[in-house]
Structure formats: C-alpha cells, structure tokens
C-alpha cells in the first residue's frame, strides 16, 4: 500500500460527493491508503490566483504544509484545477527560498506547521496509470466493462501548462486510454479530448463556454461513444449538468452519460450503488449500466 495525503477539494466535498465516495471506496483496491486532510481550504481554483495572488500562495502553502505534516511525500488530488493550482504554488515555493521563508513566517504566525517543500502533488489518474497502481488496477477491475466504448476527456489543467504538470505529452496523452483498456473498455479517439469544456467562464460568459462545451460532446457522439470519462469534477459538471443548456441553445440532446474516473474504474471493480452514487448525475447513466448488464 502507498500512503498518500488526500485533498478532495471543494466539489468532491459538496456538489460532486459521488467523486469522493467512489474515490474512497476505490483507493484500497488500487493500493492507496488515503489520509484525508481535515484542516484545509479551497485551492482558489485559479480565481484567487487571479484576484489576490499572494493570498492564493498562502492558502496553497497551508494545504501543502498540512499534507507534509501527515508524513507522506505525496498529496493526491482528484481535480484538474486543484492539481494545477497546488503544483504551480508548490513550484514557486520550492524555487524561491525568500518566498518560502516569508510565507512560512506567516504560516507560523497564524499557527500553521511550516512547509519544507517536500511534497509532490499528484492526481489520482497519475498514481494508477502506471507502475504499481496500474498493476493493482488491472487486478481490481475484475468485472470488466464488456467492451464499453468510452470517450476519454482530459480537460485542460491536467495537461497544460506541461512545464508545471508534465506527467504526459499534452498533445498525445495516453493515461485515460490505458485505464479504459485495463478495465476492459474500448477507448474512442476524438480531437477535442484535450480541449476546454468551458467551465471556468460558464457563469460569466455562458455563450462562449457553450461553444467550447459542444465540441467534445459532438465528437464523442460521432465517434460512437457510450459514455465519457473525465478526471476533473469541473469538466464533469459542465459536461453533465450543462448538456440541458446545450439542448436549449442548439436543439441537440446528446444524452451522453459522463463518468468520473473513479466511477468508471469503480464499475469495473464492482463498487456498490451507494459508493458510485449515479443518482446524483443529471444525465442518466442508465444506458451504460444496461449495456453492461446484458
């Protein structure tokens, strides 16, 4: 077992609870022992980075400090946006001694443990796409996916900027495909799998965002996908919940089931309904479950 500090972030704590329950249920099956961080806050989601960047650095330093205090050298995330925000702050802190010293002084002032820079932030996807996690995954996915055609949707902030993320080639990612195959599914390919779902501006610029959102859905349907899978709860929210807005705006009803990464593997690993919580999805996952039941 690998022990990691687990940062679930805002959505898995609130509107995407199904991401948290399926992740917690899946973890032991893929060799991960999760220490959930209790005293942490939002990473700022790029918004605090933009509104008050110095506060953003402090919030993320505090999350990293509490992760380090668990004794683990790995902070596991389940969201693209958390991954980029934490890795970006970590990089800045690790590469600027004066900055780390000033922020540590501030953390000490308010009673937060110091951060030495010894934590690496990794998304769940990266922990199970290769190495021991991948081997365990293949064993865990014993129920398989019966050739389910799954469209991987990476989203942006797990691929770009690659100098801060760097797990895989941002133009030719392979990790989701590897996992879909390991679970017995069939990955389908389409160009928009690495593009934006529009979520960051879905409230402030809905029309622009919908113009982005329609591309992966349209292409996944054309490629014959039964479902889409994403490692990001924000991509999940726009792909799942905003499909109805696309229907209203364009007349097209995609009816495309959207699965969190932990749910897709969870189905193949035989997680229970109460762990997968598909009832919380806006677009029904029923057709996927029916296809697997036949």
């Amino acid at each position, binding site marked *: 077992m690998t022990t990691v500090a687990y940062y679930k972030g*805002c959505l898995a*704590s*609130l*509107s995407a609870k199904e991401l948290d329950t399926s992740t917690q249920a899946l973890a032991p099956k893929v060799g991960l022992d999760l220490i959930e961080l*209790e*005293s942490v*806050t939002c990473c700022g989601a*790029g*918004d*605090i*980075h*933009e*509104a*008050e*960047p*110095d*506060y*953003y650095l402090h*919030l993320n330093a505090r999350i990293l400090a509490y992760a380090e205090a668990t004794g683990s050298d790995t902070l596991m995330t389940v969201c693209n946006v958390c991954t980029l925000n934490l890795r970006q702050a970590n*990089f*800045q802190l690790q*590469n*600027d001694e004066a900055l780390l010293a000033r922020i540590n002084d*501030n953390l000490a*002032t*308010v*009673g*937060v443990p110091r951060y030495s820079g010894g934590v690496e932030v990794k998304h769940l996807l990266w922990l199970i796409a290769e190495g021991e996690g991948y081997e365990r995954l293949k064993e865990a996915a014993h129920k398989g996916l019966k050739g389910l055609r799954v469209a991987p949707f990476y989203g*942006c*902030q797990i691929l*770009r900027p*690659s*100098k*801060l993320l760097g797990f895989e*080639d941002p*133009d*030719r990612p*392979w990790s989701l*495909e590897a996992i879909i195959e390991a679970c017995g599914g069939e990955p389908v*390919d389409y*160009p928009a799998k690495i*593009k*934006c779902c*529009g979520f*960051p*501006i879905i*409230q*402030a*610029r809905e*029309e*622009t*965002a*919908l113009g*982005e959102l329609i591309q992966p859905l349209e292409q996944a349907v054309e490629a014959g996908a039964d479902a889409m899978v994403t490692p990001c709860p924000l991509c999940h929210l726009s792909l799942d*919940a905003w499909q109805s*807005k696309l229907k209203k705006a364009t007349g097209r009803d995609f009816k495309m089931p959207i699965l969190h990464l932990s749910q897709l593997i969870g189905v193949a690993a035989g997680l229970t309904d109460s762990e997968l919580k598909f*009832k*919380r*999805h*806006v677009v029904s996952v029923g057709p996927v479950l029916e296809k697997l039941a036949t």
Partner: protein
Amino acid sequence: MEARDDDEMATAGAQLLMAAGNGSSGPTMDVALKIWRFDSETGERELKQYEVEAPEWSCLLDVLDIVKDRVDGTLSYRKSCRMMICGSCGMRMDGAAVLACKERMKPIVDAGHVPVISAMGNLPILKDLVVDMGPFWDKFKAMKPWLQPGFDEPADGKEYRVSQERMNVIHKEALCINCGCCVSECNSMESDPEFLGPQALAKGMRFVGDARDGATVERLEEYNSEHGIWDCTRCYFCNERCPKGVDPRDAIAKLGAESIKHGIDRDMGAKHAKWFVKSAETTGWLRETELVPKTQGIVSSIKEMKFAMGLARKGKVPPPFPPHVADRVEESRKLRELTKTQGRDGALGIVQGERGLARIEHTDRGGARRDVPETDPTEPPVLRDLS
C-alpha cells in the same frame, strides 16, 4: 565568402548555402511531409504529400524551402529571419502551432512520422500556409501598444529609474514576437472571435505593468470589456504553444489581479473571482450555491431558477445553511489579513517564485505533436514513443 575562410568565428556561409543544394555537406535525410494546400480565390483545398532530401540539421522551414525550390514553386508561406525573432513563420504541424524555423525535423524523420503541415487556426487562410493577419493586428492596435506619458518626472531631474522588481513583472510579456501561435490555438477565440485574445492581452499587460506608463487605469477599463480579460477560459493552450515563453494566460491573470487591485471589478468574471476569496476566508471551502447570485446578480439568478432546480434535485446545489466550514478556518482568515499588509497584491504577487519557472521556459520537446482529423486515418492514433 573566401575572404572569411580564415576567420574562425565566421559562419560557414558557403556550406550553409550549398547544403540545401546537392547534399554535398554532411549527412542528409529523406523527409516526407503532407501540406494542406489552399487557394482562397478558387476555394480549392488539397492535402499533398512531398518527399525531399534535406540536411539532417534542417528545421521545418528549411524543408519547406527545399520543397518550394525543387518540387513546387507555387507553395506559399511566410518567412524572414530564420532565427525565432521575426515571428513570420507561424504555422501548424500536426495540429499544433509552431514556428517553422524552430522545429527540428530529424526526430520526426527518425520516428518514421509524416507530419501534416497546415495554416494557423483562428485566422482566415489566404493561400496554403499564409493567413490573413488583419484581425490579429486590429486587436494588437486596440491595445495602444506604446508607452503613454503621464508619469511623474523624477524629483532629482535625472533619468527615470525602474527597479528590477518592477521590470520582472513584465519580463515574459516583453519577449513576445507577435507570431500568432497563441491566437491560433485559443479555445475562447474559437467560440468568440471577438475575444481580444492572448497576444493582445499579453501586450496590454506589458504596458499596464510598465512603471513608466501613465494610462494604467484607462487601459484596465478597456481590457475589462465584454470581449476582454474575463473571456479567457484558462485552457492554457497559449502558454503551451508560445515559442518564446511569454505565457499569455499568466499575463491575463496579472491583468485580472491589477484590475481588482484598482477596484475595477464590475465584470461578472471579477465578481466570480472575488467570491472565491470571500469563501476561502469565511468558510474555507467554496460557497458554491451563492456563487451564481454573487457573480450574475439576483435578477439573472432568478432567470436561472429552473436550471438550478434541476440541479438541486440531483444534490448539485448544496444548501448554504448550515455552511460547510473547514476545520481551523480562522487560520485562513488571518492569512488573508496578513497578506493585505505585505504589499504583494496585483501582478507583483503572480510573478513571485517565477525565476524558477523561467529556467524551464524554453523546453523543446522536439518531434511531431499529434494526429489530427485531417491526417491519414491509417496512421497510428497515438504516438507515445515520441517524447
């Protein structure tokens, strides 16, 4: 050329010119590539394959020159300096914007890959690989890309001095060569062609962040327009593609930070960003349910009620009361109070620790990027072995 033969430092001019001729200087390789030919006058469009012999050191631009010289003189593309500074030769290779003079072809040839070359995206194609840069320059000009007077004269009557710390804020933005690679890939601009876009906004930050410019507030007001900074969808394609390490998305974040610092926060994007700050210091976690009214205002939120009710039925609208409060959230509140007193707000806050980033800015992965729909479908869809 002969006169320079004795000079150790001289460029081997004769060799350079000869190399593309008959392969007499050094090893060569056989390069195959496909080029999307296009003529806007006739509307004709064709993917044509070319195979030429080229020196092993060739970049994409060298290969295009050989194709034009020996195979098809009608091939059109832009070029000038050949050294990554004029910004003329932006185009796409395997769907990703590149400078043709920066891309070495040997790793691609060694991998047995036949790259697809096409014109940049988000701009109208005139012929083959030449795009109409008109819309690009219109947005560039709209930024008023020159220093505007209005700053205070130095009290001692000497030259105006700017601290290194201040100049660091615009270090990356000043590297822009106006090639358009970022614009080509911008996901927001695909959806909203009027978006000012990454190049223009990075240029805007270059002046907003310049201590000698006297029009900061006026500029920020303009860049906060409907198609301005809050139209950016944070896809980070601009940072990924920029051949010079400008990181336009970071420039846009700096403009957002400067806007909020100057109290220019009427846009929904700014209100959205500020609500995250409020959430972090009060409950620690995002107060999701209140985000919509705080961003869009009460009237717009009411129009969204039907949509919201649909989400609420699925548990996607967590009740705001009692609030989900993080353990030890007072630490978060106190940290905000501390940061407010330490003078690191605005763009200055974003460039902290960036000198570390600068060291890995100009990484060149080399090789082809990825297959795109216009590529021969018989080719392997994923090229994992090229890194």
